[in-house]
């Protein structure tokens, strides 16, 4: 019984939150890695682009609510995803045409493009703050919980409760669907293969008749989908604050590089590596150990390896360690 309680504690406080957070990071990391692999620069506007897409979801959710549209027990925000994605892609293509395209055609070094993306970051942040302001916004409606701690306790008779928030379930399920479709597209379709070919060897791809314009267009479309959905899922789970999205860019970069930048599979797993590391290293294990250790060994302290203040620092430290010892990332092999 104690063992089951201990497992429930872990599930409730570490595994489920880590899977959720990891999914959000994974979507962002694949976005980073796609841009890096195909357009060949580190996009410092990543977080703010995700924020931009989410902003539309927030505004549309408010609008839908005001005219009485809802999605039953699911969040209304899910209904707004297609529209938000559409706006996001439009914005990305506008930026690409007015800003990035020039440097791509000139074949500027990646550093210059990265610096340009800093400019895009500033502009995007300004646009977001001017449109929606910097304040915290919640836009979650519908059922909040799939499983409540009290219900779970009644059901099982265990001392520990298990809570599953609907946003957690939605995040995990939606991520799996989106990522599965994307990997199918990249691996099984002609366009997907041509994108991977372009990423691998641009000159040869051109000699094979692959149209670079089309590759770039599709890359931005996929990037728009990933960025918007990742941003919305994060916003639903926590809340929407433009500033937080900028900060999230850092663990997202960490996930992408840990997974081997340019490699979407690596980015996907990298998201979970970062999330699990952050949560496992900052979780106070006292409650868990109480169940599995004999009473005489019960810990006095919280049994926390690091204070939660250092959550971000953990992902960065992992990244730095990976960069030093294995700059190509921990997942080698097939790239996009």
């Amino acid at each position, binding site marked *: 019984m104690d063992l089951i309680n201990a497992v429930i504690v872990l599930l409730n406080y570490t595994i489920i939150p880590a899977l959720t957070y990891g999914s959000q990071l994974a979507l962002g990391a694949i976005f980073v890695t796609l841009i890096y692999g195909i357009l060949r*620069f*580190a996009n*410092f506007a990543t977080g703010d682009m995700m924020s931009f897409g989410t902003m539309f979801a927030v505004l549309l959710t408010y609008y839908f609510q005001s005219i009485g549209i809802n999605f039953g027990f699911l969040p209304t925000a899910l209904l707004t995803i297609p529209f938000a994605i559409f706006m996001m892609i439009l914005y990305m293509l506008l930026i690409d045409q007015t*800003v990035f395209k*020039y440097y791509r055609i000139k074949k500027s*070094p*990646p*550093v*210059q493009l*990265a*610096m*340009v993306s*800093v*400019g*895009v*970051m*500033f*502009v*995007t*942040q*300004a*646009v977001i*703050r*001017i449109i929606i*302001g*910097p304040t915290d916004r919640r836009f979650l409606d519908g059922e909040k919980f799939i499983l409540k701690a009290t219900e779970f306790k009644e059901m099982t008779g265990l001392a520990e409760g298990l809570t599953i928030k609907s946003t957690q379930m939605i995040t995990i399920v939606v991520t799996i669907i989106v990522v599965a479709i994307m990997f199918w597209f990249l691996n099984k379709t002609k366009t997907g293969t041509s994108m991977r070919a372009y990423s691998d060897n641009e000159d040869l791809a051109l000699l094979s008749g692959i149209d670079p314009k089309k590759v770039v267009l599709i890359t931005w479309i996929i990037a728009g989908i990933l960025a918007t959905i990742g941003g919305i899922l994060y916003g639903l789970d926590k809340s929407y604050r433009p500033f937080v999205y*900028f900060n999230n860019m*850092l663990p997202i*970069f*960490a996930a992408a*590089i840990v997974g081997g930048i340019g490699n979407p599979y690596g980015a996907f797993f990298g998201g979970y590596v970062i999330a699990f590391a952050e949560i496992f290293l900052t979780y106070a294990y006292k409650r868990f150990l109480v169940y599995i250790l004999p009473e005489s060994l019960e810990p006095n302290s919280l049994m926390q390896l690091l*204070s939660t*203040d*250092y959550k*971000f*620092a953990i992902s*960065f*430290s992992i*990244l*730095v360690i990976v*960069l*030093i010892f294995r*700059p190509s990332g921990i997942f080698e092999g097939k790239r996009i």
Partner: protein
Amino acid sequence: MKNYLNIIVAYSIMMLLIILVGIFQSWSIALTIFNYCMISAVMTLGANIQWGYAGLINFGIMGYTALGGLAVVLVSVAPVPEAWSVGGVNMITSLGIVILMIFSTRYILKNIKKSNKRNYLIAGIIIVGLILIKIIAGPAIEQIEAVDPAKTGFLGGLGLPVLFSWIVGGLFAAGLAFIVGKVALGLRADYLAIATLLIAEIVVSIIKHEDWLARGVKNVIGLKRPAPYEIDLQTSPWFINLVEKFHSAKLNLANSLSERQDILNQLVIDASSVYVKLCFAGMFLVVVIILLIITQKALYSPWGRMMRAIRDNEEAASAMGKNVVKQHLFIFILGSAIVGIAGAMMVTNDGLFTPGSYRPMRYTFVIWVMVIVGGTGNNFGAILGGFVVWFLWVEAAPIALFFINLFTAHLPETNEIKVHLINSAPYFRFLLVGIGLLLIMRFRPQGIIPEKIIKQ
């Protein structure tokens, strides 16, 4: 000569803008902007050494700035004896353990060949060391932080003159740069950018959360100043006399003695703030000029030529026997140290240390915009970039407000869009700086004052 003309014109325009602020807003605001411009200029000089001279991309400016700020606290604040007595021994022991860990790791790295055994040994040392530190420092930290937490709750500093901290700030930053450089300089440019960005975040999060060190997000206020305090000036007869003399014409217009006294009081208050800022401006100007002379000399020295050679063609330079790795590390440390000095200057100027305010947007990316806008590889350009961008950053909101009012003049005051835009005025600084950066990169990629190609 034409180049110098450009520089003179650009700087004159900049000065004129600041003077205009003095005339239309207030001299106090103008001087605040001017002082911050100079702090920014020091930062850009540092970043420019790395990027402009050597092509190293350092997105960790924030971390070095914060370390410089930390130096001010650790140097100038008086020590807290109670905190030292409850936890001092343990903290020093922990420091000793850290040093021991570093040296034993170094020893292992030097004397044992690359193998799994070596890795396990190092991992063992780190884990044992961390556990020891946790056991020794943990309770001490709690006790230190419990010492009058509303006011102290930290070990305090050394109680030395604050100007000394500018040098210490530079040394701190140099120390961090040494570690970062050793670790990350081999990375490709964009990886280096990301790695330095993240390392800076780690540094700031340590400063933010280790309250025993510098009170963390509880901030340290009332730091010592190398300049007089306004309140002292306002009661000093010599200062009041000075103000009286300076404004005698204005004062003579007063109708009665009491009115004259009121005007004088107000003038003294204004003048005291201007005087303090002028003192800072003087000190900052000295730093900027010294750094400018040194960096200019360095740029045109054989060493500067070698650095540019390395930047423009690393392989060729290394084939010619130049130690690229060593030079890169050196320049990385040098540039970071200058940024550290700027960080210390800034905290001295503010009189308070607020770790929570260190954000990459303000302390890394804006500085980078300054470097690129000003002109990479050119020290005059870097300084100008610091001035121009900081000026825009501060004055963006008033400028935006002006234009919003201009374009929405026909709308009623209660118009929703107008109200929303007016409330959003502060965010136009991001727009202005972002668009400025994009335009410069597109149409004048070498910056306002380009790097001169030195032939010979």
